[in-house]
């Protein structure tokens, strides 16, 4: 396609991006200031920062739902223009459609994209099996637990085979045990296929999952520091957190983050 595009082109590139919001009553606030980040293909990046600092803003700009005020956002080497079909997004809130059965929810992506009904449902059944919900295809979301609904959301996103997966505190509403299970499930589903940007306020979650952790400052957010997480893969999130190296890294990052949380 594009001659400048090669394996070395980063999947996501943000160069000196700032973002300013205009509220409905006409006031301007700065959510993000001079932020730069580059995510390689197949890399798992986590962004942590104090609550409400503008972490989610970065994701909105990658999807194209939000335009940067200054700076440049590139996806697969090309500037962002509208929603890129190679992107998948898992939300913090329950964004599965309550009026569709579990199977219809998972099949939504292929159907929107014009696949035939039989192909879409075949694939949906396959993904339901992968997330262990093959017996629940006919159920409606309200009949499932929070963890199961999140699995539906994961299957719904993964069925489109996104090359870039954006996750906005996807597991923050789950209880501790379910969250750990979901993290492992995510790592298995991902398995290095595609780049992930995972926004969270949970530092341990970020370290357990990611290759690199970006720490943001309090609002207006800017990059404070980037940490390489050199824990070996494949990781089991429920065990890796007892690794001495994990504890060491988490102590370092927390030292940085604490100042920002106190400011925020």
């Amino acid at each position, binding site marked *: 396609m594009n001659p400048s595009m090669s394996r070395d082109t980063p999947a996501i590139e943000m160069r000196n991006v700032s973002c300013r919001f205009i509220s409905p009553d006409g006031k301007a606030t700065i959510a993000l200031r001079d932020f730069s980040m580059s995510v390689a293909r197949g890399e798992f990046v986590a962004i942590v920062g104090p609550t409400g600092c503008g972490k989610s803003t970065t994701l909105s700009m990658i999807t194209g739902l939000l335009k940067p005020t200054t700076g440049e956002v590139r996806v697969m080497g090309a500037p962002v223009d509208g929603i890129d079909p190679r992107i998948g*997004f898992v939300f913090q809130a329950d*964004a599965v*459609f*309550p*009026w569709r059965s579990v199977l219809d929810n998972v099949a*939504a*992506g292929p159907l929107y994209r014009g696949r035939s009904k039989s192909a879409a449902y075949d694939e949906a059944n396959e993904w339901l099996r992968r997330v262990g919900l093959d017996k629940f295809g006919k159920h409606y979301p309200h009949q499932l637990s929070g963890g199961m609904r999140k699995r539906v959301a994961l299957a719904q996103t993964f069925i489109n085979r996104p090359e870039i997966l954006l996750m906005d505190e996807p597991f923050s509403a789950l209880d501790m045990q379910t969250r750990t299970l979901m993290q492992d499930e995510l790592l298995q589903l991902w398995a290095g296929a595609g780049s992930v940007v995972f926004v969270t306020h949970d530092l341990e979650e970020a370290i357990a999952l990611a290759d690199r952790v970006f720490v943001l400052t309090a609002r207006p957010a800017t990059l404070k520091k980037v940490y390489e997480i050199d824990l070996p893969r494949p990781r089991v999130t429920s065990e890796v957190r007892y690794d001495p190296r994990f504890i060491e890294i988490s102590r370092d990052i927390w030292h940085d983050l604490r100042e920002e949380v106190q400011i925020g």
Partner: protein
Amino acid sequence: MSTTTSEQMMPSGIDAASLAHVERVAQKRIRQRHALVISLRIVVLVVVLGGWELSARLKWIDPFFFSMPSAIFDQIVDWFVNGTSQGPLLTQVWVTLEETALGFLIGSVAGVFCGIVLGRNKLLSDVFSLYIKIANSIPRVVLGSVFVIALGLGMASKVALAVVMVFFVVFANAFQGVREADRFMIANAQILGASRRQVTTSVVIPSALSWILASLHVSFGFALVGAVVGEFLGSKQGIGLLISTAQGAFNASGVFAAMIVLAVVALAADYLLTAVEHRLLKWRPAAV
């Protein structure tokens, strides 16, 4: 203490036999309460109707003005058997029902359509919301007179009034329902690949549906009011005319009898709408 599941080790009070006993007692109590409620309802009905009948017969109230249950019943039977002054009773019911249903259908379709269009378009909704608020605050029954003048004594004027009565209620609800559509769900659909039209049909309309259906309940009653008031203001057929004729003849029983016929029609329609609603909203958790 060691954990064991053998029944002999269970302390008394939570073994199988006593659980079954407690369940039986509880279920009996629930049944008894149900029976109590129903019998109290019957008592209330008997006291009210009996008191009315009695005080009319004893001349505590004037049966000429306030009628009495037995006279109302006789009137309904008479209408059924001998027909009304305007023709058979069922024809009158049918005429009113036709006007109501037509007005309800046109009004709600138009209301849903306008609600969705304005709900999805910020500029249109900012411009029109003021006028709709004004139009909504006018007592719309008054328009009935205009419709009778303009559209004549036939069905059109009643349907028009019913449409006006229904439209605003349904419109307001559809509009609100569209605006309340969860923005994360909309974003989710967009990222999954939905076009703007697919977002409207597969996210916005389903999420507005519970609002719209709730308004349909209320607005069927409004359509009935519109049709009856329209007939009242001038017509050749219908229950509204029946009421106005009875009023002209100082026939209080006739007015009450027509009212009861209307109530039966409204209740039947409500039952039907509830059934439709359950069918369409089966994805929702059961109401607590």
